[in-house]
């Protein structure tokens, strides 16, 4: 299963979660079967508008099954939901490792609607 998490650095499983989904610096693409990890730079981060949609497209193109993030804006939520990707919310103080562990232990909350107004 492919899990994607926005991260502020590309330093392995200890990398911190980027609190902004659309404008995250990187996306950590994690394969939960072997815990292999690949960091993808988020080109949408610097775009004037539609960062949430662009980031959602990137995650869908990478074949995400699950996304764990601190915050999902309305457009990102709609795009990811349309792609059938499951979303879970996590504290921005977590790192990738603790987020995955929380997901596996079932302690993360499933996101069923946008968690913020999003940014322009």
């Amino acid at each position, binding site marked *: 299963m492919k899990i994607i998490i926005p991260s502020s650095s590309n330093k392995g499983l200890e990398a911190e979660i980027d609190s902004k989904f659309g404008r995250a610096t990187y996306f950590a693409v994690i394969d939960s079967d072997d815990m292999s990890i690949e960091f993808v730079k988020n080109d949408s981060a610097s775009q*004037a508008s*539609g960062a949430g949609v662009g980031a959602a497209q990137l995650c869908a193109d990478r074949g995400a099954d699950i996304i764990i993030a601190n915050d999902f804006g309305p457009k990102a939520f709609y795009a990811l939901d349309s*792609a059938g990707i499951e979303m879970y919310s996590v504290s921005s103080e977590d790192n990738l490792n603790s987020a995955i562990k929380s997901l596996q232990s079932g302690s993360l909350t499933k996101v069923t609607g946008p968690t913020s107004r999003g940014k322009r």
Partner: protein
Amino acid sequence: MKISILSGKGGTGKTTLAVNMALSLKNVQLLDADVEEPDDYIFISPDIFETEAESVLRLIPEVDDDLCTACKKCVDFCEYNALAMMLDKVLVFPEICHSCGGCKIVCPENAITEVERELGKIRHAVNGDIDFWQGDLNTGEEKAVPVIEKLKTKMDADKKIIIDSPPGTTCPTVEAVAETDYSIVVTEPTPFGLHDMDMVIEMLREIEQPFGVVINRSDENSDHLIEDYCTENNINILLKIPFSREIAELYSKGTAFVKEMESWKSKFQLLYYDIVREVNNNEKNNSN
């Protein structure tokens, strides 16, 4: 004569200046181009939302899913991420769309057509000597420029035109200021006011727009913040509106203060004619 009124931050006094100036002049046209939060109407025509409005429309793409082969060319083309491809289906995000029509052109299957969408409204009212026009952006819409463009088609060159611009330095503000003869930058004597005024002035110099400054909530103990900056940068301070309880109370009741403080009318008239003189001088100098 077309004068635009702008400020770096919201809440500095654009509305105060625009409505009081308009109420002090004859044969005037006031355009409220602060389309995200127009509030000149409170002082000019409180019932404006009961009048019939004219729609501002723009085109956004609509995808025929039966014709679409999910080639993703439209998504890749869109610089603004207004389109996404999810499970082989194109999603359209109308609020982000800039209505460029590019997606329709790049689609090899002719699966994209453009449909009209209302993004705002233009309203009109007359109050005595004021021909008042207002643009308002529909809730949830992000593109203010087309509403301001449409609003500006209502300009009557035979009138003294005052445009109340959106705050800031982004596209909507530039659109409101463009093609006006002169801009008034409203500021307040605070560090925040100074900082944001500096940004506006940088933008105005970039587009080579003539301008002067009006200090609102003027106070002798802090005006030096703005005065020092203006002296240093060779900028004319046109007027000071004092930090006064009376003005604030009238504002909070929705009353333009020139209605109760008649002596201010002549100050706004003087302000207007000072600007006319400066614009005429500039034109003379430019033609020499």
